[in-house]
C-alpha cells in the first residue's frame, strides 16, 4: 500500500451563458498516505465538490492525473455524497449489496450494519429512514467496497448537532477498524479538527492549497471540546493566511 497522489494542474469551467472558461482549480497537489484521514477545509463554492468528482472519475475534463501505486489504474473509490443518493426502490441492505462483488460474504454486510447500528432497519426502504440513518447507510456503502480512497462530501451537513455528533462517532469507530484513506470535505473547522490527521486549507475560487497542517491532538483526546477549541483559536490567530478563509 503506497500513497495516492492527486495532481490537478488546471481545471476550468464554462459558466452558463459565457463563452470564456474560468479557472476553477489551479496547481492543486495532494498526497494521501495509507490510513490517513485528510480534511479539506475551505469556503463554500470554492470547488471542493468539483475536486471530489474529478477524483471519483465522474469529471474527466481536466488537466492533471490521479496516481496510484499500480501504474495506469485509477483508485477504487467509495463516495459519500452530500445527499445520501440511495436507490429508493431498494432496501437498505440491497443498496449496500448492489455495490459489492458477488463473492463478498453476507457476514461482512451484517458486521457493517451492526457497527453503524442499522441492523434493525436493513430491510426497510430508504424513504422511511431519517436523514441521519440514510447518511449512515451511505457511509456503510462507501466502506463496503474497500476503497483506495474514500471521499466524503460534507456528509453531516443539515443534521442537528446531537445527530451529527452521533454519526461522527460511529464513523470514527468504523474508520479505526477499517482505516482507508479518507478525503473529507467540510467548511466546519471544529468538525475537521475532531476528525482529521491532516488539515488541508483551500483558497476561494480558483481553488488551490493554501496550507497543510497535521492535527497535534491524540486520537483519544478528540472528544475533548476544549482541546479542539484551543487548537481552533490557535489556528485563527497564528495563521493570517488561513483565518480569512474560515
Amino acid at each position, binding site marked *: 500500500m503506497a500513497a495516492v497522489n492527486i495532481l490537478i494542474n488546471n481545471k476550468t469551467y464554462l459558466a452558463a451563458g459565457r463563452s470564456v472558461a474560468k479557472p476553477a482549480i489551479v496547481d492543486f497537489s495532494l498526497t494521501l498516505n495509507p490510513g490517513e484521514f485528510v480534511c479539506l477545509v475551505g469556503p463554500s463554492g470554492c470547488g471542493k465538490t468539483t475536486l471530489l*468528482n474529478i477524483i*471519483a*472519475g*465522474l469529471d474527466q475534463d481536466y488537466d492533471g492525473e490521479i496516481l496510484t501505486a499500480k501504474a495506469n489504474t485509477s483508485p477504487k*473509490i*467509495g*463516495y459519500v*455524497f452530500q*445527499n445520501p*443518493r440511495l*436507490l*429508493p*426502490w*431498494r432496501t437498505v441492505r440491497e443498496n449496500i449489496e*448492489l*455495490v459489492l462483488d458477488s463473492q463478498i460474504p453476507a457476514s461482512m454486510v451484517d458486521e457493517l450494519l451492526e457497527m453503524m447500528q442499522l441492523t434493525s432497519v436493513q430491510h426497510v*426502504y430508504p*424513504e*422511511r429512514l431519517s436523514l441521519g440513518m440514510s447518511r449512515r447507510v451511505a457511509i456503510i*456503502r462507501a466502506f463496503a*467496497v474497500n476503497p483506495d480512497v474514500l471521499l466524503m462530501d460534507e456528509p453531516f451537513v443539515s443534521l442537528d448537532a446531537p445527530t451529527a455528533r452521533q454519526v461522527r462517532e460511529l464513523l470514527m469507530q468504523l474508520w479505526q477498524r477499517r482505516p482507508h484513506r479518507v478525503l473529507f470535505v467540510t467548511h466546519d473547522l471544529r468538525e475537521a479538527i475532531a476528525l482529521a490527521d491532516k488539515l488541508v486549507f483551500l483558497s476561494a475560487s480558483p481553488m488551490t492549497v493554501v496550507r497543510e497542517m497535521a492535527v497535534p491532538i491524540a486520537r483519544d483526546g478528540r472528544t475533548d471540546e476544549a482541546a479542539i477549541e484551543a487548537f481552533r483559536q490557535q489556528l485563527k490567530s497564528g495563521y493570517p493566511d488561513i483565518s480569512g478563509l474560515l
Partner: protein
Amino acid sequence: MIGFQKLLPTLSLLALTAIWQGVAVFVNSHTLPTPYAVAWVLWQAIASGQLPYHLGVTLLRLVTSFTIAMLMGSAIGILLGRSRKLDAFFDNWLVIFLNVPALVTIILCYVWLGLVESAAILAVVINKLPNVIVTVREGTRALDQDLLDMARCYGFGKRKTLLHVIWPQLHPFIMAATRSGLALIWKIILVVELLGRSNGMGYQLHLFFQLFDVASILAYTIAFVVVMQLIELLVLKPLDKTAQRWRR
C-alpha cells in the same frame, strides 16, 4: 356508511342498466334493444363459439402489435432521451408520425403490402410507436443524474445500471405508455380489421352494421369492455403494486 360506499360502483352500474331499459322500452325500436335482449344475444354468441373466436383473433393481434410497439418504442425512446444529437435529428420524424391519421397509415400499409396479416400488424405498430417513444423519451430525460453518477462511481456497469437505476425510474412512464397504448390499439385494431381482414371484432362489427344488428353490436361491445377491465385488474394493477411497494 363504509358498506354503502363499497356498493356504490355496483349501484351505478344497475342505475345505468335501468336507464337503458327505460329508454329502450320507451322508444320501442329494434335499433335500441333492451338489456335483456342484448344479454341473450351475448350468451348465444358465446355459446356458438363465434364471439370467443373473433375476440381471440383480435386479442392475438393486440398482443403482437402491442409487444412490438412497446419493445421498439422503449428502446428508441431511451436512445433519444440519452442522446441530444439523435433527438435533434429524429424529432421531426416523430412529430410527422404522431400526426399522420391512423386511417392513412392503415390504408397505405394495405396498399403497399396487400391485404395480409403483417400489413395489419405493421399498421397498428406504426400508429402506436411514436406514442411510446415520446413517453419513454420524457422519462429518460427526467432520469436522476445524481443516481447515475453514483452508479458510475461505484462501477455498476451497463446491466446493473439499467436494471437497478434506470428501469425503476422509467417504470411509471412505461406503465403510462402501456395504459394509453392498450386503449389506443384497441380502437385502431378494429378499423384495421374492418378495412382489410376477414376475421376479428372489427370484421364482425362491420357485418352487423350492414345487417343493422344493433343487439349484436352491443353484445360484442360489452364483451370487449369486460376483457379490457380484466386486463387492467389482473395484469396492470398487480404490476403497479409490486413496482411501487417502496413508496411511502
